């Protein structure tokens, strides 16, 4: 408000309304954009939004600080460029499975929901795709089974929430319990070994020096970014999460979209199940334990608003990488996992506190400006 442009004299002359939806040619479009003062900012990669990008810079700062801590505590290791490169790959590989799950989780949370069942879905999909019967169809059959199970379980969540009107927390909590139960009963509580070399190679192999798992993470993140920022699906997600009533009154099918969001989360879990099965060359009902907490925490420190409507894929990715870096840092220093969990908890709280503080100071500033303009 404070930097409002000097307004032309507001003579209420009869405005010429446009004929409705005339054809617009690209040249006109460009001119209009420049006129609006937004032409300069119009670039293809822009989309995560100005303040979102700023938040991500903060996360990169945290990441840099963690690396500095690593370099200070283990100067001999960090002095070896070869080791550093391998360590970066190790961190990314560590982040890959949870990263894929987090992309789906980010969509669900931006859409105003929450999915507590992701870990359980990963386990169920992993167990399902490693049964003797499924393995008899070969690697293709296993991959299909994992993805199909993920999508179907996600759809069940989605139908319960959007058409059964269950609270997301309750529906997915129930699914968490039920899916793990089903996984345990299918596997008969046994570890099922994967005999498919194709599946097992995914985690073992590297292409041009980089593990395939990292490529998968990169592909899912890229796809997630494009879908969120460049497609109607992403736009609907933000609208549905930001103001469901406004979305509904604008003609968006809020229920169907909510359902699809959980199916998307399920799909990500299916992909993660293949990755995790490949890493362990086996699957069991207890796998991917507490992934829901890791994914939610990563999304939140990445700046995704738990109430929906705001969040970025890049932020979530950074959140996952930060957690993986902490784990890595504690491992190379030989510290216990208990201490590591305490630090993680502290980081979640600190991240949210910082975000709240930023938000409050911005709104206070706006309010002050408004009062000065009014008087």
């Amino acid at each position: 408000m404070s930097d409002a442009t000097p307004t032309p004299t507001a003579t209420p002359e009869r405005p010429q309304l446009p004929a409705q939806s005339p054809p617009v040619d690209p040249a006109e479009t460009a001119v209009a954009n420049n006129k609006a003062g937004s032409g300069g900012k119009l670039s293809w990669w822009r989309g995560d939004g100005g303040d979102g990008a700023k938040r991500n810079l903060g996360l990169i700062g945290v990441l840099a600080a963690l690396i500095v801590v690593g370099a200070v505590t283990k100067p001999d290791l960090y002095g070896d460029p070869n080791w550093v490169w391998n360590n970066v790959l190790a961190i990314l590989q560590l982040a890959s499975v949870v990263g894929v799950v987090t992309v789906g989780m980010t969509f669900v949370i931006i859409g105003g929901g929450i999915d507590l069942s992701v870990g359980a879905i990963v386990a169920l999909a992993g167990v399902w795709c490693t049964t003797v019967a499924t393995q008899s169809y070969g690697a293709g059959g296993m991959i299909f089974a994992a993805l199909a199970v993920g999508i179907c379980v996600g759809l069940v969540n989605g139908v319960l929430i959007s058409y059964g009107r269950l609270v997301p927390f309750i529906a997915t909590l129930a699914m968490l319990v039920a899916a793990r139960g089903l996984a345990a009963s299918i596997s008969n509580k046994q570890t099922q070994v994967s005999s498919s070399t194709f599946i097992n190679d995914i985690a073992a192999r590297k292409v041009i020096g980089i593990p395939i798992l990292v490529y998968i993470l990169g592909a899912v993140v890229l796809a997630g970014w494009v879908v969120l920022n460049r497609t109607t699906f992403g736009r609907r997600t933000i609208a549905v999460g930001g103001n469901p009533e406004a979305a509904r009154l604008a003609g968006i099918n809020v229920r169907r979209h909510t359902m699809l969001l959980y199916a998307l989360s399920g799909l990500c879990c299916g992909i993660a199940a293949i990755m995790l099965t490949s890493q362990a060359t086996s699957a069991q009902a207890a796998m991917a334990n507490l992934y829901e907490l890791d994914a939610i925490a990563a999304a939140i420190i990445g700046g995704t608003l738990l109430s929906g409507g705001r969040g970025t894929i890049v932020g979530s990715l950074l959140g996952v990488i930060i957690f993986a870096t902490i784990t890595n840092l504690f491992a190379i220093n030989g510290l216990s996992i208990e201490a590591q969990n305490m630090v993680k908890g502290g980081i979640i709280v600190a991240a949210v506190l910082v975000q709240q503080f930023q938000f409050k100071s911005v709104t206070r500033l706006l309010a002050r400006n408004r009062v000065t303009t009014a008087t």
Partner: protein
Amino acid sequence: MALPEDDPATASAEAVAEAPLVEAPADTVAGEVVLRLTDLVKTFPGVRALDGVQLEVRAGEVHCLLGQNGAGKSTLIKVLAGVHQPDSGQVEWRGEPATFANPQAAMKAGIATIYQELDLVEDLSVAENAFLGHEYRSFGFVRRGRMARHTRQILSRLGHGEIPPGRMVRSLPAAGKQIVSMARALSHEARLIIMDEPSAVLAHDEVGNLFRIIRELTAQGIAVIYISHRLEEIREIGDRVTVLKDGRTTAANLPARDTPTRDLVSRMTGRTIEYVFPDRPTDDSAGADLLQVQGLTRTGEFADVSLTVRAGEIVGIAGLVGSGRSELLETIYGARLPEAGTVQMDGKVLRPGVGAAVRAGMGMAPEERKSQALLLGEPIYRNVTLATFGRYARLGFTNAAKERAEADRIAETLELRPRDVDRPVRTLSGGNQQKVVVGRWLLGGTKLLLLDEPTRGVDVGARAELYQVIRALAAQGVGVLLVSSEVPEVLGLADRVLVMREGRVVREAAAGELDENTVLDLVMAGSLMEGAPA
């Protein structure tokens, strides 16, 4: 740098000069003055909600507050209840200057407020609600027995000893809940009880009971500030009336029983700001029937409503909040399911659901802009294209450049300020936010526009612009169905007017055949014949 629409101060200044305060001789009531407000002012960002309110309330009287929507009644109540602090002016409480820093302070001083939406905790008992926040306790334990006894005492004082103090409030009917609210007021030893439209939630016979209780309270020396839109109630229960308009007292201490209705209404409406309405087309340019509504009914909201809107015609619905007008609009739009009746666009019955309505060419600007229409943190262009972004997309990929261009075109047409479509909608003034909502439906071939309170929270300058836009749309053949609680707006803008009261259409006429007083009289269920001088 103030935008012109953020500055109502100029309008207020001239209004003060034009509207002299009327004060009737006030010997009708004997009690001592318990509350006196002098020149109370309260400003919110962009709005001067109270702009010099005078009020005098005596012990043992029922003092009625009258005023149209937006006159400042709610703000005044909240100042008295300690929710808001006045910017300037004096509050004198029982002879002493007073400030109520918070609701607890106001209650302690003896001012209790019964809000329209009762603020009870449904899953606590009657006694727990009555003593909420000031329970009897010893050593941290609530003394339930003592509380129950005292509650029973209060309830019988209110003539409702039959309500068990242990009963859950949820299980009580609306009238019973109101009794509990009053019991709470009395548990604070209130000397002044403010009632905000208490009869709105009550059936007819229950109102009689409410009045009996009010009389018993005033007989005990308690003062009551009574707010209602129903003139007949004010005549029945009120002692004196104070009228508010645009945040100012326009008449104080009028005798409630014998002030002619015409006087009251003119004090509520007598405008100091002339609205500029665009001219109606001289010829009958309206086209074929666009929207046909037949016998639409939703129990408790509206009943048996039939109406038509022709292409190029503006139809206005006048009615108070709670008359069912907003619900009617949402039902036509498919956002609520009707129990009976049909909605037809272009002669075809619409399937239920907003999606079908939008596909048939309807668009709606809902009543609550912020909660129902806007994504406040998102840029303007995304809000403008919220209903149409799919049409610019190819294979599911959005076309942000085209969306920006279209939004900018709309921004230019509607003179959006500032005209930067990348700004978050949050940063716009109310009038400009409304333009974004209306502008949404200028894209993509909307044939019928449903507008619910399009100028609420919009200042005078931006109003005139919105009126121009609406009329220009109609000139292009768009049908408009407009709901507003501001009667002059409906009369000035619409070609045809429907008056709604308590869920029914009570009058339909061309706008030229009605005047403000007639319509106000209809919506308030008073009767001109009764109060007018012979």
